[in-house]
């Protein structure tokens, strides 16, 4: 799975470089983000702006990660659009995750 990370202020921004997030990438996604948490990142912004398809297993992996983060930090979803955004709404996960239109909005909103 293509994933690149960089820091922006106190945030670790993880950019998903895949267009499809399905069962084939879900375990890898979970592993790599869990690694970021292990390495000490607490405030993570996940940039989904390149993703055009997501299924239940990848969304499930994000849910597990959010549980890992718990109250100790943030896992903010940025740039979800089209059917990816629809999937969050349909499953009510838009009420569970903090959602932002873009990485900048995510970082800005929390700073403000």
């Amino acid at each position: 799975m293509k994933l690149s990370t960089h820091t922006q202020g106190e945030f670790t921004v993880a950019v998903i470089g895949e267009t499809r997030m399905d069962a084939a990438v879900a375990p890898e996604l979970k592993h790599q983000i869990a690694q970021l948490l292990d390495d000490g990142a607490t405030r993570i912004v996940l940039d989904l702006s390149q993703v055009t398809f997501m299924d239940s297993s990848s969304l499930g992996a994000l849910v597990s990660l959010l549980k890992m983060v718990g109250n100790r930090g943030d896992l903010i979803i940025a740039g979800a659009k089209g059917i990816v955004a629809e999937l969050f709404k349909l499953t009510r996960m838009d009420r569970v995750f903090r959602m932002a239109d873009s990485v900048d909005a995510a970082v800005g909103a929390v700073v403000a």
Partner: protein
Amino acid sequence: MKAMILAAGKGTRVRPITNEMPKPMIPILRKPVMESIVELLRTHDVQEIVVNTSHLAPVIENYFRDGTQLGVHIAYSYEGYMTEDGLEGKALGSAGGMKRIQEFSGFFDETFIVLCGDAWIDLDISAALRQHREKGGVATIILQEVPHEEVHKYGVVKLDERQRIVQFQEKPKPQYAVSNLINTGIYIFEPEIFDYIPSGVEYDIGSQLFPALVGAGEEFFGIKMDFQWVDIGSVPDVWAATRMALQGKIHGFDMPGKEVRPGIWTGINVSINWDRVKIKPPVYIGSSTKIEAGSKIMGPCMIGANCVVETGAEISECLISDYTRIGGMATLDNKLIFGGECISPDGNVINVSETQIRWLVNDTRRVLNPSDIHDMLLFNNMLSFYGELELEREKEMA
């Protein structure tokens, strides 16, 4: 008068609905649009109807059969072939389809009306026929006046002072439009029209036959009629038509079922705990459907037959087709659920099996598999966990 209903189109703009259902079979509140057309024809004493079919022909042919149940005679002219892989449609175009029928039997031996099977209309066909006879042309096009800014969606027609058609424009920009009279795709013809249609080739009424008539100097006319014309040419159109029907905005549309509460219609054998379900009209709920306590339905909403709406589900302004289970965690806002797809009017389509959200939206007859149940529990846990967190936060704030 005899009739021909055009039903051979592929309906590409109504995908994915038309992947399994040809456009004339798309229902407005349970009744296929074409059935309303057949009923209208019968009301105006048209009893012999030939339907040209192609794409998904059996769906139409098995539903209407020979027409007896609707009090008319219906015959089909199938355009296509049987191949190793099954039926393969090859549509001949609207005029080509007419010509094929005429060459087969000479069916059109008197004045006849041709109309599309995919728009709901309440045209006074008898009045249109009277005007056609007064004009005396070989063809009469039924026209409608539309606001000037909408002409770009239609074929525009210019008439002279005798109502003769002198010019056509296909989807002109408003500033170039020669009038605001549009072609509704409803035509009355005399059998002499076949002199102008070549045989054995694809030929279209609007873009080929009429220009040929103009070219030949043949007199034909346009008559402006005032009637309701509800097109279902696209997915948003289907939803708009259903909304209009629910809101009572389609004149003369008979609501199915019984009105059991103000603005709430149901079929029979429904299971609803009225005291514990929140429903805002207008809503239609189909027969053998169960609405569980603690669910929320905000109209305009149409829920098909044999559906289950589970405790906690929130449905607002949706069209849900038969045999759909809506899970308790689902929030459906402005969606069409059809054939395993969750369609937004803006064109986004979520396929429930591809996205593996059958735990959320499913066919009521399908049994959930272990991975569905795993996901359901995972998301459910998360939602309740989050709910508790919220409560704690609220307490802290207080």
